[in-house]
């Protein structure tokens, strides 16, 4: 209890904007390491993977905020928008690395998107997040109205599952890490489902 109070108190005092700056540091730092040959023999794949992984972690983290408040009394709501926007930016960086540095060839890119299911799923995930990023501002909330805006932003549930499935599908062999992300994504979305509590019909 003391811990949650301390965190809640600190969260109240801290502004949200530094999250953007702190959150973008890894992107720049990783790119710098890659450009200066410090990401190992194959920097493109490392960069692509790291950006994608950070995006997924931010998505999962962003989705954990509401349950944290509901079940642990931890109020980090004011940081949720920044986390969401950052997750979109990392997905965009991930996509850019794939387009420009990895596949490079436009015809191959187009072929990959419709021919390879995991890439199709990744692209759909990106497109789902696009309207969310564009409406992550107070003006949009007012314009759309709180109810519509909230409904629109439930697309996040789809995005996190698409992202995790994308990760599972691109892995070779049977690997644990992507499955843990998928489990986390499904678990966090399941917490949102309003389970229909109809009484079980009694026989006889």
């Amino acid at each position: 209890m003391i811990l949650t109070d301390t965190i809640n108190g600190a969260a109240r005092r801290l502004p949200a904007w530094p999250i953007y700056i702190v959150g973008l540091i890894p992107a720049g730092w990783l790119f710098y390491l890659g450009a200066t040959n410090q990401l190992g023999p194959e920097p493109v794949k490392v960069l692509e993977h790291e950006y994608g992984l950070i995006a997924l972690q931010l998505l999962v983290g962003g989705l954990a905020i509401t349950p944290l408040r509901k079940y642990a009394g931890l109020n980090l709501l004011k940081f949720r928008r920044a986390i969401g926007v950052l997750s979109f930016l990392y997905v965009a960086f991930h996509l850019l690395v794939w387009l420009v540095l990895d596949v490079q060839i436009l015809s191959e890119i187009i072929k990959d998107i419709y021919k390879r299911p995991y890439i199709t799923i990744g692209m759909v995930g990106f497109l789902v997040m696009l309207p969310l990023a564009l409406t992550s501002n107070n003006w949009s909330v007012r314009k759309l109205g709180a109810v519509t805006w909230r409904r629109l932003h439930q697309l996040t549930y789809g995005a996190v599952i698409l992202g995790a499935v994308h990760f599972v599908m691109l892995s070779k062999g049977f690997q644990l890490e992507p499955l843990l992300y998928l489990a986390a994504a499904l678990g966090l979305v399941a917490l949102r489902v309003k389970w229909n509590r109809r009484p079980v019909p009694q026989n006889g």
Partner: protein
Amino acid sequence: MAGRWKNDLTYNDVTPEAVFLNRRQLIAGAAAAGVAGTIASPAMAEELVPNSFEDITNYCNFYEFGTGKDDPARYAGALTTQPWSIEIDGMVDNPGTYSFEQVMDGMAVEERIYRFRCVEAWSMVVPWNGFELADLLEKVGVQSGAKYVAFETAYRPDEMRGVAFPVLDWPYREGLRLDEAMHPLTMMATGLYGKPMPNQNGAPIRLVVPWKYGFKSIKSIVRITLTDEEPFASWNQANPREYGFYSNVNPEVDHPRWSQATERVIGGGLFARRQPTLMFNGYEDEVASLYEGMDLTKFI
């Protein structure tokens, strides 16, 4: 009878690594300046320069030590490679357990600079040291009915942290048709850059089949079996649609999850261009005849 095949990728084998590094830096510099910004043509193959020892030993797939590319470099040190023995059995005249020294007895070790193309669409050039598998097979005496050669990697849960999780059906196994195994390009490698084989690259002895995707070139071999049936192959068993038994490098047959038409050459840095992948990884003249009459879109 070594020397069945003559290296077309020549380099002065006393050239120190430092010179390679310098050459790589020149190439990287040219690429950065936009001079080498075009896709390299197959004709440039003769100009291929081996990857640095550092690249070759730090970018590996050896799932017994973890699925990350740097996991083998980090954890393969735990593998005991001395003493080492290989059980050679099945349809051979002299079956038995051969110590590493007995295997090496009478083998002519040569250096061969081969292209190495991973199924994940990246490639390297590696200066291997080793001998032709045919020499070993001749030494143990292949019986007339044998059609395939099966290989098995060591399985040591105490030394291999990656086998705790069933990424694949351990132990790792691979196989070749007998004519592929007897082909002069097929070698058993025991070193690279003139040094003993680093653990992460498959110490102390591994297969190298340069015209096939890298996963066919099984590492740290403890068993070789001559058989008349197509042997179990780990990746083929895990996903036959993605990893065929043959798995010859073929730019025209895509992996279901990605294109195999081009490859990313390791060591080129963040802004390197992709290169077109060559049929049979550039060894078409040498090996295409092995597959005459076979539909390579079916026999993947």
